[in-house]
Structures are given as C-alpha cells and as structure tokens.
C-alpha cells in the first residue's frame, strides 16, 4: 500500500529524514519508535504532505501513485489519515460540523453526492458510542478547551468516521490515562482489517500492549536503524534506546 524509498526530507535546509525505507501492506500494523528528535513526527507530516517539509531525495507512493505532487487534501481523499500529536483548535466549528464537512469534501472529490443527513447522523452516533464519546462533546467547538485526552479521543473518533485506508497515529498515547488509552486502543483495533493499514508512532511500548503491531521499526537520526517484530518493542522498553544509538554509530 505505502512504499517509501530512500526518503530524504528537510525543513529550512535542516536535514531531518536521511534515507527512510519502509513498506506497509494492507492489513498490517507498523509501529515506529525512537527517541525524541529522531524524525518520527516529521515522517508522519511528510506522508501527509505538510508543505514546510521539502523532499530532497527518494519517493513516497501510495497504491502505486507517487504522492509528492499531491496536495494534502488529495492525499486525504486517497485514504491517508493522520491522527495529530497536537490537534489544532477551530473555535466556533463544532465537532459534528467539522466531520460533516470533512466527509462531504472527500465524497465530493470522489464524485459522490453529500452524505444524506440521516446516514451521517447514524454514522456519527454509532462511532461515538464505540469510542464512549458523550453527545454533548459533539456540539463543542473543535478541540477548543478539550483536555489532552479528549483531543486524542476526538482524533480517533474522526478516524473511525472517515475509515481511512492508511491511518498514521502520531503519539496518540501521550496525554492519555490508562482508561482512555484502553478505549482509544479498542477503537483502533476495531478498525483493523485486511484491507487497511496502520502506522503507530510512539515513544513508549505501553500503547503497543493494546495495539499489537506486526512490525516494529526504530528510528534514529532520520533513519530506520532496526526493524523487527513486537518483541523488539519490549527489548527497547528494557534497554532504552542507547544501545541502538551506539550500534548505529558503529
């Protein structure tokens, strides 16, 4: 589904990604771990198409189509979803209104009519129940005055509603208490299917106890320095990242 080849990316001429190779197939869950500043969030932003980042070398493709020339919204229409580490506030725009706009814009891009109101309502109700979201929450302004946990839950809620092919969860576990983490992880797990892929970006192994990955990659200084299965995450938890840094330095 997603193919990243020798990807180099910079911001303001500062090199952040220095040759990433990654292939994610439908049905797989990949975890990307690594210390602060290793380039995890940059990788997520570059896949989503944030313009500040410049691709210097290499390529990203989704289902065989090169992503580099596509605007962020076009990538979204192709089924790429990013759960933000720091979701932004949009005052005066309710969660429901935002989701409605997002869904209908994506449908429009695919040449479809707006989703009928009753269908939309049903979808929103169903997914909000799944993620244990209070109905009052839906009429609040998007992310305005939300707690850290509410913001993250709202991201996963949007993901559930939009049903992307490829979901990237950027530090979704940060700011979540254990109960919220369980709910969010349950939500993500329900979305796992053979035709969807998920990339989980995380600092800690904790989230991976709930969302069990098929593959774990360790990012260090803009490169994937080690790949393995879920056991690698446990090893990292135990030993920290230092041994990998040393290994990489050799």
């Amino acid at each position, binding site marked *: 589904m997603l193919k990243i080849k020798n990807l180099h990316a910079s911001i303001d001429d500062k090199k952040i990604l220095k040759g990433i190779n990654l292939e994610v197939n439908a049905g797989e869950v990949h975890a990307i771990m690594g210390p602060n500043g290793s380039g995890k969030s940059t990788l997520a932003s570059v896949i989503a198409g944030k313009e500040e980042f410049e691709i210097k070398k290499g390529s990203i493709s989704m289902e065989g189509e090169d992503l580099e020339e596509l*605007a962020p919204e076009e990538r979204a*229409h192709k089924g790429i979803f990013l759960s933000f580490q720091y979701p*932004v506030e949009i*005052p*005066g*725009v309710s969660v429901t209104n935002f989701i409605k706009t*997002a869904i209908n*814009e994506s449908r429009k*891009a695919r040449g479809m009519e707006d989703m009928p109101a009753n269908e939309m309502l049903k979808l929103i109700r169903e997914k909000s129940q799944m993620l244990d979201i209070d109905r009052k929450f839906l009429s609040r302004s998007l992310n305005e005055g939300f707690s850290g946990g509410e913001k993250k839950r709202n991201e996963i809620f949007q993901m559930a509603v939009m049903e992307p092919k490829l979901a990237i969860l950027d530090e979704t576990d940060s700011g979540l208490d254990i109960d919220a983490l369980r709910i969010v992880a349950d939500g993500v797990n329900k979305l796992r299917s053979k035709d969807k892929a998920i990339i989980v970006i995380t600092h800690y192994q904790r989230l991976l106890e709930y969302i069990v990955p098929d593959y774990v990659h360790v990012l260090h200084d803009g490169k994937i320095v080690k790949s393995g299965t879920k056991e690698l995450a446990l090893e990292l938890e135990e030993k920290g990242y230092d041994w990998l840094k040393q290994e990489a330095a050799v």
Partner: protein
Amino acid sequence: MAYTEEELKKELETKEYEYGFYTDIESDTLPKGLNEDIVIAISKKKEEPDWMTQWRLEAFRAWQEMKEPEWANVKYKKPDFQDISYYSAPNKKPKYNSLDEVDPELLDTFKKLGISVDEQKKLAGVAVDIVMDSVSVATTFKKTLAEKGIIFCSISEAIQEHPELVKKYIGTVVPKKDNFYAALNSAVFSDGSFCYIPKGVRCPMELSTYFRINQAGTGQFERTLVIAEEGSYVSYLEGCTAPMRDENQLHAAVVELIALDNAEIKYSTVQNWFPGNKEGKGGVYNFVTKRGLCEKNAKISWTQVETGSAVTWKYPSCILKGDHSIGEFYSIAVTNNYQQADTGTKMIHLGKNTRSTIISKGISAGHSQNSYRGLVQVNSRAENARNFSQCDSLLMGNECGAHTFPYIEVKNKTAQIEHEATTSKIGEDQIFYCNQRGIDTEKAIALIVNGFSKEVLNKLPMEFAVEAQKLLEISLEGSVG
C-alpha cells in the same frame, strides 16, 4: 410568517401592472454642485411641504459650516462635493441588453450566491420582463401590512401621506447637524424607507429593502426612519448580498430608529457595495449614520455583515433613554485587498437598569485595514447600567491590519462594564489540519471564518444568515495563497 422571495415574485408577476408607476425621468436630473438653490430644487421635485424644505435648508447651512471628520482610521481622497449631482432619478433604460454583456466576474459571483437568472439580470441592470420597482413592491407589501395598520413605504411617500409622523420624528435621533455626513444627507436625501408599526402590533413578516435596490443609482443619500409604537415589534432587513455596483462613489445614508415603551426593533444589514478592484481602485465610500432611541423597556438590536465598500465609516448606535431598555450590536466586518473599515457602535446609557451587548468580529485579509471603534457611555443617572463588549479580530496573511479603539466613559459607580478583545490569525497549522481531513484551503478558510463569525451569523434571520455565510466565503476567496 416570513415572506419569501419566491412568494413575492409570484405576487408581483400576477400584479405586474396593477401598481404601475414611473416618474418623469427627463426632467429629473439636476446639474452638478451644491447650493441653496439645489436643495430647494430637490425639495420642489419631490413636491415637499414647506417645513421640509426649510428643514433641508437649515441642514445645508449647518453643513456648510462643518468640516469633514478626520479622526477615523481610514485614508482616502476627499470627495469634491461640488462635483456631484445631488439628484438624478433612476435610469429607466437598462444598462445592458443581455447577460452576455455583463462582467463575467460579477455573474460568477451571482452564481455562487445562488441567485436566479432573472434576479441576476435585475441586479446587473439587464432589461427584464418583470419590472420590480420600489414603489410597486412597497405597495404589495403595504396591502398585506395595511390590515395591521403598518405603514411601509418610501420616505418621499411618507412625507406626502403621513407628514405628521415624519415631522414629529425625523431628525429626533440623528439631528440634522449631528455630523458632517448626516447634515449633508439631511439637506439632499433623495429617498429611503419609512416604516411605522402601530401600538401593540407585531409585524408579521421581515420588512425588507432587498427588493428596493434593483434600480440603478440606489440613492446615494438614503434616509430611513423606523418608528415602533408602544409594545410593537418589527424586524427590518436592509441591503442585499449580491454585489452592488454603483457609479456613485459617495454614499451617506442616515437611519433613525425609534422604539417607544416596550417596543422592539431588530435591524439587520448586509452590505456588499463594490469594494474596488484588487489593486484598490474604485469602490464605494460608505459614510453612514445609524442610531436608535430606546424608550422605557424598549430594545434595539443592530446586526450587520459588512463585506463591501472601499471605505466604511459606520457606527450603528443606541441611545438607551428609557429605564430597563436594551441595546445590542452584532457585527461582522470583512475587509480584503485594499478595503478600509472603521466601524463599531455607541451605547449611550441614560436610563436606569439599561443593558447593552456588543459583539464585534473583524476579519482582515489582503492589504486591508479593519478598525473597531466603540463607545460605551454611562450617564450619571443611569443606575445599574451594564455592558458587555467583545471584540474579536481575525487576521489572514501578513499585510493586513486589525485595530480596536474602545472608549469607555462611566459617570455612575453602579455600572458594570466588561470588555474582552482577542486577535488571532488563521494559522498554517489550522489549514493543514483541515487539508489533512480532505478539506481544501478555500473551504478550510470558509469553515474557520464562519466558526469565528458564528455568534453574529446566528443573530441574522434564517434566510439572510445562509446568504451572509456564502458572502463571507466569496469575499475572502483567494486571500490565502
């Protein structure tokens, strides 16, 4: 019951010529320039009674002694007042023979606003089959309203038909010497609307000037007078979301509202005069004086969506004279390209337990300058006066400006005044977030702007709100690269 455009049109189609009306055009144009003779001539043309002529002359003499105000945060070339023709009747001849001759950009905007082809022709000045001139519309309304004793007509007609009402109220809220532009308007006003709601009557429909502005040369100096008798209610809509192009560069209107004991007036405006082109050339100067007087327990709400004009100078105000009276001001002012707006309100608390609310939303884009200027004044006798003001500014890009000039004058210790102000910028992060959810940048801006303006949009009557929302989107199109 709201009167829809469709219903009105249908009614007009069937009554097309029943109220046929036209003025003798050839003789209705006066030479350029302004002096006492011109003022007298205008009054004569309108067959006004002597007291009206004298009133105009007094205003003119006062105006001659006055100076054009310079305190507003706007820069423009002052009009040459001797180079303006102060009375020219609506041009009856259509400007164009078909829509093909009309500026495609204008038509594109019409389409986006969802304006019907007939309506498009009418607004662009193309010949149409159905002639909807102001008087016939007013007459149609009048019939429906007559049963309730409501008077809704042009001010000229009111001067003829209801001189006692006009004489009693005109200039009582905006005195003829109030300010430079109000004095000018008082001397030369050509037309405008008059509305009278009798005691205890709730006006059953939104009174709208929407249908009155289809004529070319809408009236450079409009004068509006709304009188709500004790315990009555009226909702009045002014303006039109369709872009209005006008050869008249200077517009100086006066609006006076009088809400007697326990009455309520809701006055909503959507202003979309030609703002000039992208380089800031052309565009209308809009210097308006709008003020309402509240007697005991009365309430006046001003709601405005200002997206047009090159220069706007406008402060719809409330004089809260009666005890327990309420004044409200809800405003959205959008400036783009090289537009300049200096707008706000004055809330003058004279009575006891008077309350006022000000919600102002300024949106600046391009190279524009957007200023909020508001006065909250609490008189020494106004016990327990309360005001809440909120002024929010939203900036788009790095070339525009937002300014807030709040004036607070309190002479009574029991007053409670709150003022909140915020300034924010549409951030790249917000746009990217929307983009990532499949919403393109143009739509994302519309979403953010509508969210920002929601508190004010909610105050507009339903049909107007939908149009206003579209108008905001169109006004800001292309403002973020």
